[in-house]
């Protein structure tokens, strides 16, 4: 049981690294989907003692949205925009991997420093959550394509979710639903925006948006 | 101790004799080389006795100098440095007799020998001095004598530039040492080293530590204070490069270690950031040093950058030791310090060997450009064999000595990584990473250096016409190569001597854990010897298999291309290109290319050059800015006598007014 939680968290860390090291946008989207599923399972495992219909429902909705709906929307937006690869990101892939290791070290250090109440024996939850948040932020900063940045946003959201699961445990259903709805709207809006940006400019490189400035 | 003083005197006498005989260069060479050889033989006995745990020798001579006392002492730490200094200097001197022969009539051989002997004597004195004033005096003598040695071929502009760079850099280093010694002196109330131990408070100790790292680090050539090194070492005659790179850099390490022994004598563990600082400095020097070496295609420049790398490894060892000390892990501390200090000796042996080998090549082909060489192993078998030995040793591979010292540092780092708490394990795993990367890159660099220079076909007429150097040059190289092998196979016997040398740093508590490393080294040396033996056996077996069979000689597989030429071989630049491209961000290699853009082959060329990044982007702007600011002051220099007298009068007046 504890080993399983550990394995899921390690899986989360590996998925963070994969998303940083991968240049294929479709691959990144798939990894995010997997993260969503992993987090759902994680919620169920951590709340195993206090299993209720509400917990199962929340985890189910989360898995459905993050593991199914969002990736589908993103993949469709990517297909319509004709984006396959992130070419020439601001930070190269080897650099990203090295930075990932550095982020991991910082995350673990933060995890030992923050006086947080975590489930007994689950010392990896907080570092994994931090690492996932860092990864999301890094993707938003260091990549050019709008689509990858949305992926970054989703990864960031996953990190926050993991953090919440780890520390708070029982989140009021309304708040949790609200967060999911926010994410949903965000992905939806960004999908539409990407579609329109692409139609107007034939690319979705955000660094060139600055040329719109009057 | 009298013997050592006698050795110093002999060095001076033979230097002066060589200078007096300067009108007869051959005699001057013999007279000049006799000094270091005799000194080395004399000093061998007391140094070995002290290292084997004998009594520490000390003496004091009368010296009329305010605050200065001519007190000298030979303890195990000094002995550990003096042995390679004198040994390598003696071999270098023998080598120099023949190496300098082509320069007869062009440059002054006699004065070169005077400087050489002064350099050797001052290095020995630096290691013996137990008074800050005496130390600094020897330190400056060392700087000046080596400056003149670097400037030996003073009619060449690049040599003069290199020498000036060296002089400026070394004095900037000394500028950091002065305040350090002064604050020691102030706290201790005397400039004698005996009073220095543990006299500083924590804050002052931290400042002095940083000053020592910068000041001594400049001499040792840590990044980014190394800028003089890749200039000065190629410019000097090769036996001088060997001595400078092999042992003179180590006086910087000696100074750092000596000051560290004062600093760690205070009760309580040293702060962890000291160890971190050394680790970072060591890792940066090591990795960048080997990377820049990889990008070079001037043989001696390549070796010079490797000195930066090896100094980095030594500093890493010291850093492991400090981390161990501050964490209260005596095993880690002892292994780290011991590995670092052993690497001092080992590097002296193989870097001396490699520079002598490079000199032998230079002597034969008159070019240091690796890409013009090739096929020298057939023409210079002894130089080739010894260079290969040095190359394997410097790559830190078994069965030679380079592996032993790296093994000790690694063992210390692994010990802390496996058993230590997270704050100890985290820095030490960085050491493991840095050493692994350095090791891999060093293999890349030395397969390149040896492979391109000595193997394949000659890439130019000069290389094709090369000939082996004479005995006076090959015998020192063979002796050093033998020392590399002995250092690898006899390592367990070196450990007791090392333990006595480490004691002032890691404390007496360190000796016992170091003894436990003895059996490990027996394993390492034993297996190394086994590998060597097995290789010889297999070679014999293969020869036996092939006797009576059809063994033919043919051309190298040319892939069906009928007219291969030596110029089609892979060059040093092409060999290193994948790695230099990969580390482009750090190296900033400049490429000048002319590529063919038509379908049929036409003339094309590519030139690469990797200038020193810190010199170009750090020092050049800094010095230019300083120059610009200072040029304002030049209006004072009118060249008119009256104005100067006016300055004098004004100064006197101001002083009078101020004092009254």
């Amino acid at each position, binding site marked *: 049981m504890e080993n399983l939680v550990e394995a899921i968290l390690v899986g989360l860390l590996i998925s963070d690294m994969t998303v940083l090291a991968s240049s294929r946008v479709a691959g990144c989207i798939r990894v995010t989907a997997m993260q969503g599923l992993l987090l759902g399972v994680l919620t169920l495992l951590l709340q195993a003692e206090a299993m209720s219909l509400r917990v199962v429902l929340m985890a189910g909705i989360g898995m459905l949205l993050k593991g199914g709906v969002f990736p589908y929307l993103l993949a469709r937006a990517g297909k319509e925009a004709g984006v396959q690869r992130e070419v020439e990101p601001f930070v190269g892939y080897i650099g990203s991997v090295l930075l990932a290791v550095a982020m991991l070290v910082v995350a673990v250090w933060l995890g*030992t420093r923050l006086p947080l109440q975590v489930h007994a024996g689950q010392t990896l939850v907080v570092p994994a959550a931090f690492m996932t948040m860092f990864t999301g932020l890094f993707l938003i900063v260091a990549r050019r394509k709008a689509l990858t940045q949305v992926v970054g946003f989703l990864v960031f959201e996953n990190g926050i979710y993991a953090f919440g699961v780890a520390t708070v445990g029982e989140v009021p259903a309304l708040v949790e639903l609200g967060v999911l709805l926010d994410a949903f709207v965000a992905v939806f809006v960004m999908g539409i925006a990407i579609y329109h940006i692409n139609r107007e400019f034939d690319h979705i490189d955000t660094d060139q948006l600055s040329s719109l400035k009057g | 101790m009298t013997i050592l003083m006698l050795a110093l005197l002999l060095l001076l006498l033979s230097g002066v004799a060589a200078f007096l005989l300067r009108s007869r260069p051959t005699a001057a060479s013999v007279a000049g080389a006799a000094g270091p050889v005799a000194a080395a033989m004399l000093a061998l006995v007391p140094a070995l006795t002290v290292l084997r745990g004998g009594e520490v020798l000390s003496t004091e001579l009368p010296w009329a100098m305010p605050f200065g006392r001519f007190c000298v002492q030979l303890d195990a730490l000094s002995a550990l440095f003096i042995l390679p200094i004198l040994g390598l200097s003696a071999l270098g001197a023998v080598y120099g007799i023949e190496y300098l022969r082509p320069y007869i009539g062009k440059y002054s051989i006699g004065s070169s020998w005077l400087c050489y002997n002064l350099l050797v004597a001052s290095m020995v004195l630096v290691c013996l001095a137990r008074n800050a004033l005496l130390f600094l005096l020897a330190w400056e003598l060392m700087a000046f004598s080596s400056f003149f040695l670097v400037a030996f071929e003073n009619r060449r502009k690049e040599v003069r530039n290199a020498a000036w760079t060296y002089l400026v850099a070394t004095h900037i280093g000394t500028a950091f040492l002065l305040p350090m010694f002064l604050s020691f002196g102030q706290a201790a109330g005397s400039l004698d080293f005996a009073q220095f131990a543990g006299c500083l408070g924590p804050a002052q100790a931290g400042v002095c530590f940083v000053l020592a790292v910068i000041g001594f680090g400049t001499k040792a050539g840590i990044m980014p204070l190394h800028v003089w090194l890749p200039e000065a070492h190629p410019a000097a005659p090769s036996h001088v490069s060997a001595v400078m790179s092999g042992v003179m850099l180590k006086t910087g390490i000696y100074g750092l270690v000596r000051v560290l022994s004062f600093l760690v004598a205070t009760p309580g563990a040293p702060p962890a950031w000291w160890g971190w600082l050394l680790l970072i400095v060591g890792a940066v020097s090591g990795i960048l040093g080997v990377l820049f070496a990889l990008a070079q295609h001037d043989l001696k420049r390549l070796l010079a950058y490797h000195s930066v790398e090896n100094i980095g490894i030594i500093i890493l060892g010291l850093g492991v030791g400090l981390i161990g000390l501050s964490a209260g892990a005596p095993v880690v501390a002892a292994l780290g310090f011991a590995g670092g200090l052993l690497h001092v000796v080992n590097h002296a042996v193989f870097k001396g060997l490699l520079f002598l080998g490079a000199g032998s090549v230079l002597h034969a082909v008159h070019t240091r450009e690796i890409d013009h060489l090739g096929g020298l192993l057939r023409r210079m078998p002894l130089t080739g064999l010894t260079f290969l030995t040095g190359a394997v040793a410097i790559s830190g591979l078994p069965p030679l000595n380079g592996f032993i010292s790296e093994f000790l540092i690694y063992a210390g780092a692994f010990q802390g990584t496996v058993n230590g708490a997270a704050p100890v394990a985290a820095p030490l795993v960085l050491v493991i990473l840095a050493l692994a990367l350095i090791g891999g890159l060093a293999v890349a660099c030395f397969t390149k250096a040896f492979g391109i220079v000595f193997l394949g076909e000659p890439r130019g007429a000069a290389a094709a016409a090369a000939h082996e150097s004479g005995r006076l040059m090959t015998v020192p190289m063979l002796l050093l190569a033998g020392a590399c092998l002995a250092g690898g196979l006899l390592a367990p016997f070196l450990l007791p001597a090392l333990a006595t040398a480490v004691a002032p740093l890691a404390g007496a508590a360190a000796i016992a854990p170091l003894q436990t490393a003895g059996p490990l080294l027996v394993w390492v040396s034993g297996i190394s010897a086994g590998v060597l033996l*097995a290789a010889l056996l297999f070679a014999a077996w293969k020869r036996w298999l092939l006797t009576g069979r059809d063994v033919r000689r043919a051309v190298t597989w040319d892939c069906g291309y009928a007219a291969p030429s030596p110029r089609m071989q892979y060059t040093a630049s092409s060999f290193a290109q994948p790695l230099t491209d990969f580390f482009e961000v750090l190296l900033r290699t400049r490429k000048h290319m002319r590529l063919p853009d038509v379908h049929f082959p036409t003339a094309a060329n590519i030139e690469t050059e990797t200038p020193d990044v810190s010199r170009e982007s750090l020092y050049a702007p800094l010095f230019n800015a300083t120059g610009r600011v200072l040029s304002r002051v030049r209006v004072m220099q009118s060249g008119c006598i009256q104005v100067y007298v006016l300055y004098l009068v004004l100064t006197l007046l101001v002083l009078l007014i101020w004092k009254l």
Partner: protein
Amino acid sequence: MTSAPLVHLFLGLLLAPLLLGVINRTKAFFAGRRGPPVLQLYWDLAKLLRKGAVYSQTTTWVFQAGPVVGLAAVLAALALIPFGGAAAPLHFNGDLLLLAYVLGLMRFFTVVAALDTGSSFEGMGASREVQFAALAEPALLLALAAAARKAGSLSLSGILPAAVPLSPELALAAGALVIVFLCENSRVPFDDPNTHLELTMIHEVMVLDHSGPDLALILYSAALKLWVLGALIVGMLVPTVAGVPWVANTVIGLAGMLLLAVVVGVVESVTARVRLVRVPHLLAAAGALAALAFVLVLR
């Protein structure tokens, strides 16, 4: 009990060429071919040892020293590797370093032997070999450091019969080691042992000019190296059973080795070789995995 290390050493010497046979048969199966016999490498070795030799006019003794030093070094490595839960024939604290560095010695001499021919193809292969090795070395040692800390031992024989089989940390370290294993042994996706174009080879091109007994030694050394690094991975992943005769654990270990060979064959069948410029990315990934493993152990 005491005879176990020697038996394992002997098994390594005997069965190492078999691994390559298994890999090739697996690949043939995936390609729908019959493939060479499993024992093909043994026949090749026997034949090569009976032949004469052709040496290039350019070469010197260094060329001939390459294969013998390589074999001697890899034999030392074999003696340091524990197998099937028993200690290695030779073991001491820090033997993992010696393992990494004797393999380095082997590489050094293979590379200089390649450069000795003066062929630009072999220079090219040598250049690639040292590049990849330099980048693989940190990943290897970091993965070993992680495993060593997990086991609390500095000796491979203390590390390898993994105390907690299949813990996430060790799985990650083993993952890094698998990448290093494929790289060091010049397998797909780093190098294609079956390629016939000199320009694209790495290991094969370095030994292009060796023939007869020299080539036999090289092929055998390569097989042993595959065995050594494979045993490292198998030892880390395959659990040993307590309370049974050591022979049982030996059999489990051998099964693990065969499984590894099959996995390598499958990987080679289903993946393409990566472009040379992308190889450092893979090695960086190995380093990242090892770092992750280490951070997890450190925690």
